């Protein structure tokens, strides 16, 4: 039963990583690509962490996985800001429809 839910979460996570990568390839400029990478991958990682935490042999291992997720979320938000800021200050114009 737990294995089934683990699989479900891992597959759903992989789907979000796939969507993030498709966005990275399809979206027209740096800014929109950052959206795809940060947001879709955050959810993908969250789902994978949940799937893996279900398999963890102890509560502390599960806690470690959740800690990793939180740190990646924070790092992702800060780095996305720095990249977007760097691009904007260098005059990279956003794509418009």
């Amino acid at each position: 039963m737990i294995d089934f839910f683990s699989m479900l979460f891992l597959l759903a996570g992989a789907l979000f990583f796939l969507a993030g990568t498709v966005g990275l390839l399809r979206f027209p400029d740096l800014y929109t690509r950052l959206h795809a990478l940060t947001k879709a991958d955050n959810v993908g990682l969250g789902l994978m962490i949940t799937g893996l935490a279900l398999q963890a042999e102890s509560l502390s291992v599960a806690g470690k996985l959740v800690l990793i997720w939180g740190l990646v979320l924070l790092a992702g938000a800060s780095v996305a800001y720095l990249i977007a800021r760097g691009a904007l200050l260098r005059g990279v114009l956003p794509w418009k429809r």
Partner: protein
Amino acid sequence: MSWIKGIIPMFMKVLVFALVWWVMTNGALQSWLIGGGAIVLATLAAKKPATHFTIRYFKLVMLIPFFLKQSILGGVDVARRALQPSMPIDPILVECPLRLPPGSPQVFMTNMVSLLPGTLSATLENNRLKMHVLDQQSSYMKDYLLLEEKVAELFSVPVQNTGAGELL
């Protein structure tokens, strides 16, 4: 009685550091010999508050489900737009005068805006936040204003009226 007020935040810090140590060492008993010292040192190092604003820790905990929800909505939203053959995006830069005081509230807000569906912080300068919006027809502004109010509550500051944002 002012020393009592300091006890609770200190206790919370000890608790958080102990939790992190426990997680990192998988609860190995012998490790607490070093861990105990590390926790004391970490608590002393964290004694000086990182911000002069009063953080309401209860509000911080209450924010977690909100961020989780927004983060999932944001992920689903961008995944849908990326996968749909017609790729429905209509990006725009928006500059908003922040209704929060400079320092930690603004920095916290800037980081959290990137978790909301369809918005990405780009620059924070002179109390103005420039953000990139994935679809200008989406209801991003509603989420943004709500988040700002929640951040104000978290740092126990009032939201200032600074006027509307503008499209760039």
